[in-house]
Structures are given as structure tokens and as C-alpha cells.
């Protein structure tokens, strides 16, 4: 059997970059903590030996109390890798050594990789590798993973991995030994188990051999007498003392007089005033690039030149060969009819959304890899705390302006269920996606400058009103804002491209089938005349309450399928002179607030279940209509 290697390390130290470089696989890489949330596996060959490699989510510590860190620890205990490669941030050796002290307890052969050598050198940090190797007793090498410099040296030291001979003098060593001696003969991780048990870790109890459980648990509770917290603090303290001693021997800092350009830029992005200016500038660029250029110009070109002139006629011709008859007609309708797979699902997926998502992923990739997003969450933290969220929610909300479907998925990075719920509802209610935004702005600018402002105020008002209500009613905790701000870096084009590629593969696998499914559903709704019935049902609300022409009813139904589709329906009506200024404003507000598109709704169902999704759906529709009615009433009053 081949040997196994686990890549372990603090968040954002470059485990995945090294993993990718060594295995030739692709695990997503970004410049913020928490990009890898699950394990990725691959293989490498060194000499004639094959190794199985596993990349783990970043962890600050293996000590108990935090859920995300358990993934890595459980993997070490369950899979018992033959070798642990700990990747460290060379600038931050102290923190890596904390994790090292904890890993050393498992007595598994290790090697240390000090990554980000370039940044360490820039910061004036020198590490005496020879001395550190002597002290820790494991092979150590340095590299700069992003450039690939020194990465191949890692392969050379992996076969030489050894168990660390670092011996930390724990003040509670006697207590640890008492437990360790009982466990010693039955498990190879006796020391680690003892320390965790004495620190009050409940999850680790399952790894104690069955026969010894009763005895060990009694011993543990007799020894610690409910002072678990104190015990854990003491261990941490002892580790810390050892680390400070080691660091004082191996690390030298030569302070620089000048800050680097990237460092200055990083700090400017955090500044309350300049940071806000930069944020607005980035939003502007994003809007111009994705909303105007790609969603407008490129999509239009693909729709007319590629689909309408080339693909559609070709497919229509193919189906013409089938002849006629009831069954053939039905099949034809299913594929190339008004709501056909080739006339609707495929063009939607490939002509409209495909270019927009490529553009967005590329743009977003640059933001991710530069380290800007954590800084944006600092700027917006206070604003978000008004609605029970914190700056961390910035990421899914920013994504939402690109594509709400993606954004719902990325809400997973939030810590509590309450936060995820609020974000998903706000995304569904008030964040228009880029394509929709483009059309709405085009429509409003034809009315007046004031109309655009009123629309914006309505959306922001709804966002904060509903956010506030949700904060009050959704049960659960809001968490405090604690994040690490990584250094600003110039993003690597290759990494961005491979990330875009990976996300596109995801898109093809997950979203395209959804589109086909939805179109088939719409096809059947049309066949049994449900569509026209719906139109008849809803026209009283649309005409009497919102004061809009009856034709807009169908655009609202279409708006559910695709947000921008509904908006473009209204846009066409406005162009034809069928809508007054007030009507345009009212319908723009309603279509923005209106339910999310089908893909996003399906994603909400996937993440939160059908029950919650239905409640959200009904509540948002009601709110959008009531708000639209109120707006109409107010506008007609003036």
C-alpha cells in the first residue's frame, strides 16, 4: 500500500498552492482564510514510491472548541497519515509553531515547509533554518509557492520525515503521564489523546479504546476536577513559552524604513474614507465591465450572431427532417418550441449567463487573489451589523450583484444559521443581478435622474427594513467580527484562469441541468394552459393595485424564470410607449424586489429546504407587491 501524506497548516499559508503544484490537481486557491472547506486528494511519486496526498482546510489549532478545526484533527486521528507536511507562513512562524507543538503530540513523522519566503524577506525577517531544524528535529525547507521557487525541494525532504524530538516541559506533565500510561499500549496517539481529554474535549472520547473508556474517563475527571479550561490554558501557556524561546533563537527582524507599495495600498483600502472611495471605484469598474460591456455588448453579440443566425436555424432544420404528426410535434415543441430546450434553456445558459459568469468569475478572481475582499468587509462591517450580520457577509452580498445563485452557495462561509438565512433572504429580495441591474438602469435613465435615485432609495430602504425585521425574528446568534487581513498581492493570471475554469466546470454540471429542468417545467405549464390562467389570476393585482397595464403580468411571471428577462419585458413595453414615468418606476421597483430567478430559488431550496424556501417566496412576493402599491399611491399623491 502506498504511504499517505497530509498537508496541514494555518489558514491562508498556501497549502493548496503547494498541493496543486505537487500533484498537478486543482484545489481552489484565494488570498483569504477559509478557501478550502473540505479535503482534496491527489497523488505524487517521489523516486519510485507513490504517495497519496490530502490537502486539509486551514486550521489555527487542533485543540477543541471550534468546529471547522475538527475536520483536520479527525483526519489525522482516523486516517493516521504516514507523514504530515506542515506548511507555514514564514512571516508568522510563531503561529505555525503553535500548531506544530500540537501536531508533535501525535508522534507522526513530519516535515516543515516555510512558505512565502519572498514576503518574509520583504518584511526583513530572517529564519535560521539550520538551528530550527536542530531544535525541532524535523526536516525543513523554504519556498515561495506562488512563483514555484523551491517547491521541488519539498519532494526531497518528504522521504526524510521524522518524528519531532521537541520536548515541551508541561507543568501538568504528571497528569498527562497518568493518563498516557494507561493508554500507551493500546494506541499510538496516547499522548495527544491524554492532552485533549484533560483539556475537556468531548469529541475525542470516541477515539479512546472501548475497554479503557471507563477507567480513563474516571481518571481524567479525578485529575482535572472540572478545571478543564485551566488545564487547556496551561498547555497553551507552556507551548507559548517554548515557542517564544525557539523564536528568539532562530528569528531575526531587520526593520525596514519604508513600507512597500502593496502594503500601503492595503492600508489605504482599510481607511474609513479612502477605503470607501476605492470601494465605490471598484463597484463602478465592475458595473462598467460586467453590467455594461459583457451583459450588454457581448451577450447581445452572442445572442444575435451566434444563436439567432447560426445555431437556432441549424437545429430547427434538423427537426424539420422528422416530419409531422402529434408525437413528432410534441417532441418538436419540447426542443424547439416557444419554451423549448434548444430555444430557451440552451441559449439562456450559454448566450446570456455563460459570458456574464466568465466575466464575473475573472473579475472576482482578481479581487479574491489580491486580498481586497477581507478589507472590504472591514469597510462595510458597521453597515452590516445594523441588520444582524457582520463584515463577513460582504462576500456573498458582493457575489450577489454578479449572480444571486452563486451568492446563495457562498453564504456557506458564514458561521451561524441565522446569518446564512438573513443573507439568503436579502439576496432574494433586494440584490439585483448584474444583467437585471443593467436593464433596469437603462430603463430608469430614460425617465429621469430622480427616478433612478428614488429606485435606489426604495431598494436600500427595503434592504435595511427587512434586514432589521429578520434580525429581530430569526432565531439564533449573530457572531462577532474577527478576521485576519492577508497581505495585498498582485494576483497570478494563471491561478485566476484555472479558478475560472474550475468554476465553469461546476457551472456546467450544476446549473445547466437546472435550466433544462426549469424549461421543461415551463413547457408543460404552457401545454396545460397554466401560464395563461396565471396571467388571468394576477391581472387584478397588477392592473388595479399597481396601476400597470395588463401586459406587464406576463413579464412578472417571466421575471421569475430569469430576473433580467422580466426586466427586459418591461423595458420593451416602455420603449413602445405603453408605460408612463410613474409606471416605469413602480414596475422597476417591483421587478427588483420580486422573487429571485428559478436557478436561485432552486439553490435556496437546496441550501435551506423546501419549507423555508416557500415561506421566503410568498413573503417576498407579498412585500414586493405591497411596496409597489404603496409607491404608486405616494407618487400619484404628489
Amino acid at each position, binding site marked *: 500500500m502506498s504511504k499517505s501524506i497530509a498537508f496541514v497548516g494555518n489558514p491562508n499559508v498556501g497549502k493548496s498552492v503547494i498541493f496543486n503544484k505537487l500533484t498537478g490537481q486543482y484545489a481552489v486557491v484565494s488570498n483569504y482564510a477559509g478557501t478550502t472547506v473540505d479535503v482534496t486528494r491527489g497523488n505524487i511519486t517521489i523516486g519510485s514510491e507513490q504517495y497519496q496526498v490530502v490537502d486539509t482546510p486551514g486550521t489555527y489549532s487542533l485543540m477543541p472548541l*471550534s468546529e471547522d478545526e475538527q475536520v483536520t484533527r479527525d483526519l489525522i486521528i482516523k486516517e493516521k497519515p504516514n507523514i504530515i507536511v506542515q506548511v507555514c507562513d514564514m512571516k508568522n512562524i510563531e503561529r505555525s509553531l503553535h500548531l506544530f507543538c500540537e501536531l508533535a503530540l501525535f508522534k507522526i513523522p513530519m516535515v516543515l515547509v516555510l512558505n512565502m519566503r519572498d514576503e518574509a524577506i520583504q518584511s526583513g525577517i530572517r529564519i535560521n533554518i539550520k538551528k530550527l531544524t536542530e531544535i525541532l528535529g524535523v526536516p525543513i525547507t523554504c519556498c515561495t509557492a506562488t512563483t514555484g521557487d523551491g517547491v521541488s525541494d519539498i519532494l526531497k525532504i518528504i522521504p526524510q520525515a521524522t518524528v519531532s524530538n521537541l520536548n515541551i516541559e508541561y*507543568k501538568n506533565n504528571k497528569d498527562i503521564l497518568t493518563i498516557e500510561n494507561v493508554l500507551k499500549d493500546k494506541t499510538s496517539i496516547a499522548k495527544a489523546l491524554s492532552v485533549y481529554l484533560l483539556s475537556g474535549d468531548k469529541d475525542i472520547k470516541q477515539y479512546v479504546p472501548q475497554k479503557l473508556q471507563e477507567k480513563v474517563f474516571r481518571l481524567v475527571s479525578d485529575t482535572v476536577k472540572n478545571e478543564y479550561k485551566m488545564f487547556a490554558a496551561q498547555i497553551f501557556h507552556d507551548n507559548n513559552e517554548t515557542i517564544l524561546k525557539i523564536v528568539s533563537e532562530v528569528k531575526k527582524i531587520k526593520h525596514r524604513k519604508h513600507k512597500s507599495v502593496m502594503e500601503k495600498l492595503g492600508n489605504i483600502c482599510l481607511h474609513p474614507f479612502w477605503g470607501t472611495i476605492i470601494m465605490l471605484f471598484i463597484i463602478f469598474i465592475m458595473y462598467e465591465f460586467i453590467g455594461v460591456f459583457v451583459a450588454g455588448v457581448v451577450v447581445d453579440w452572442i445572442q444575435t450572431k451566434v444563436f439567432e443566425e447560426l445555431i437556432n436555424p441549424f437545429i430547427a432544420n434538423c427537426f424539420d427532417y422528422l416530419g409531422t404528426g402529434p408525437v413528432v410535434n410534441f417532441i418538436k415543441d419540447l426542443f424547439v418550441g416557444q419554451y423549448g430546450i434548444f430555444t430557451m434553456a440552451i441559449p439562456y445558459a450559454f448566450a446570456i449567463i455563460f459570458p456574464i459568469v466568465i466575466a464575473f468569475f475573472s473579475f472576482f478572481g482578481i479581487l479574491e487573489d489580491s486580498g481586497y475582499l477581507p478589507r472590504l468587509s472591514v469597510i462595510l462591517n458597521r453597515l452590516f451589523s445594523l441588520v444582524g450580520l*457582520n463584515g463577513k457577509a460582504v462576500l456573498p452580498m458582493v457575489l450577489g450583484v454578479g449572480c444571486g445563485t452563486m451568492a446563495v452557495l457562498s453564504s456557506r462561509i458564514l458561521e451561524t444559521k441565522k446569518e446564512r438565512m438573513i443573507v439568503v433572504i436579502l439576496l432574494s429580495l433586494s440584490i439585483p443581478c448584474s444583467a437585471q441591474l443593467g436593464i433596469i438602469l437603462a430603463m430608469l435613465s430614460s425617465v429621469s435622474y430622480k427616478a433612478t435615485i428614488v429606485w435606489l432609495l426604495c431598494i436600500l430602504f427595503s434592504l435595511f427594513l427587512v434586514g432589521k425585521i429578520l434580525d429581530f425574528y430569526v432565531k439564533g446568534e449573530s457572531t*462577532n467580527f474577527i478576521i485576519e487581513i492577508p497581505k495585498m498581492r498582485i494576483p497570478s493570471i494563471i491561478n485566476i484562469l484555472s479558478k475560472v475554469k474550475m468554476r465553469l466546470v461546476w457551472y456546467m454540471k450544476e446549473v445547466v441541468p437546472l435550466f433544462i429542468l426549469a424549461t421543461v417545467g415551463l413547457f408543460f405549464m404552457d401545454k396545460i394552459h397554466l401560464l395563461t390562467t396565471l396571467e388571468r389570476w394576477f391581472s387584478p393585482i397588477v392592473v388595479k393595485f399597481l396601476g400597470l397595464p395588463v401586459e406587464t403580468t406576463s413579464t412578472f411571471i417571466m421575471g421569475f424564470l430569469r430576473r433580467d428577462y422580466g426586466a427586459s419585458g418591461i423595458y420593451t413595453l416602455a420603449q413602445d410607449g405603453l408605460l408612463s414615468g410613474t409606471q416605469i418606476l413602480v414596475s422597476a421597483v417591483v421587478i427588483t424586489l420580486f422573487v429571485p430567478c428559478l436557478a436561485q430559488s432552486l439553490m435556496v431550496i437546496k441550501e435551506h429546504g423546501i419549507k423555508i424556501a416557500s415561506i421566503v417566496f410568498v413573503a417576498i412576493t407579498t412585500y414586493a407587491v405591497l411596496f409597489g402599491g404603496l409607491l404608486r399611491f405616494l407618487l400619484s399623491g404628489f
Partner: protein
Amino acid sequence: MTINVHKSKENIDIEEALGVIWTSLQRNEDDFEKVSETIEKGVSKNITNILLEKNFIIKEKNKIKLTDAGEDLGKQLTRRHRLTERLLADVLDFNRQDIEKIACDLEHNLSTDLADSICTLLGHPKQCPHGNPIPEGNCCKNSSSKIESIVVPLSKIDIAEEVTLSYIVTTNHDYMHKLLSIGLVPGTKLKLHQKFPTYIVKVNETQIALDGEVANLIYVRK
């Protein structure tokens, strides 16, 4: 200001026992037999009777209760004990294992005034190093004091000031753990970079963003 209070052996025992009872009651352990067994073992044999005689405690259906006088003494003792622990751990940097013993001796010799001064000096800490709450004194309620605190929450220091992290006050294990492991370890040097829109501190080569609530949990020494 009275600095030292000389007490008889009996008075010390009474205080000690009341401290134990007070903390037991805080943990909702109020079984008369059990509590009296603990104090008779730990303090002195006849202590339960003395407390009953002096009207510090009463027995109500197998439950132990403190009278107002007993409550006051027990609470004050606990306060002095835990404040002493804080002082030893944070300012004098004593080994955590020795703290308990020294605190047990010192706690009887502190006057309320002196305890208040220590409390102010330490920035009115809310928890002892074990994570147990420190009962409030008068000084915590009216924070006007002539003594300047040397240990203050991060939110009270100036931008660009370099300080040393003393301790983190929280009963939430997750926060404590997260802060510790992100590099906010007692004893590390911090530099406050900005306070708005969020706090940004620099620890070694890392910048960490925190909201105001968290900044209030982090106590630092200037």
C-alpha cells in the same frame, strides 16, 4: 485608606468557609450536608456550627442559605481572591500553578479599599484567570478614581500605541480559542492601527480586524 486588616484564626476560617459556600451557591450546589462536609474538610471541623451560631448561614429543609451578612462576607472574599489571582497572573506573571496558593493567603489580608484599588489598577476585570466571574465592587460601579488603570481594554488605548496583551475576558470558549489561535496570545505585543470602521491590530506580521465588542474583551498593558 486601610491597607492591612489583622484577623484572628477564627475570622479567617469564617471568611474562607463563607467564600466556599458563596461559590457553591453560585453553581447552584445548595445541599446542606454536602456543602458542610466540604467546608469541614477544607476549613475546620466545627465550622458549620460556628457559622450557624454567628448567624451567617441558615438551614432550610436540607438546603444551605446565606444570611445577608454571610452573603456579603462570602462575596467580598471571592472578589478579593479572584482579583488577587488576576494580579498575580497578569501583572506579576506568576506561574499559574502557584497562583491559587498565594491567592488563598493574600485574600484575607486585603481591605475592601485595597481590593478596589487593585481592581481599578487592573481595569476592573470581569473574570479571574480560571474564567470565573469576579463580583463587582463599588469601584466598578463608579469608575471615577484617582488611580490610573495600567491594564485597559483595547478600545481604550490610542492609535499607533504599542501594548502587550494581558488577558482576554470571555466565557465563550469559541471566541477565546479563536482569538488565541489567530495570534492574540497573552504576552504578545500589539500595535493598534485603527479604530474605525473596525479595530485593526498588528500582531507580528499579521493584521487582524475585530469589531468593538471583541476589542472590549481584550485587555492590554501599556
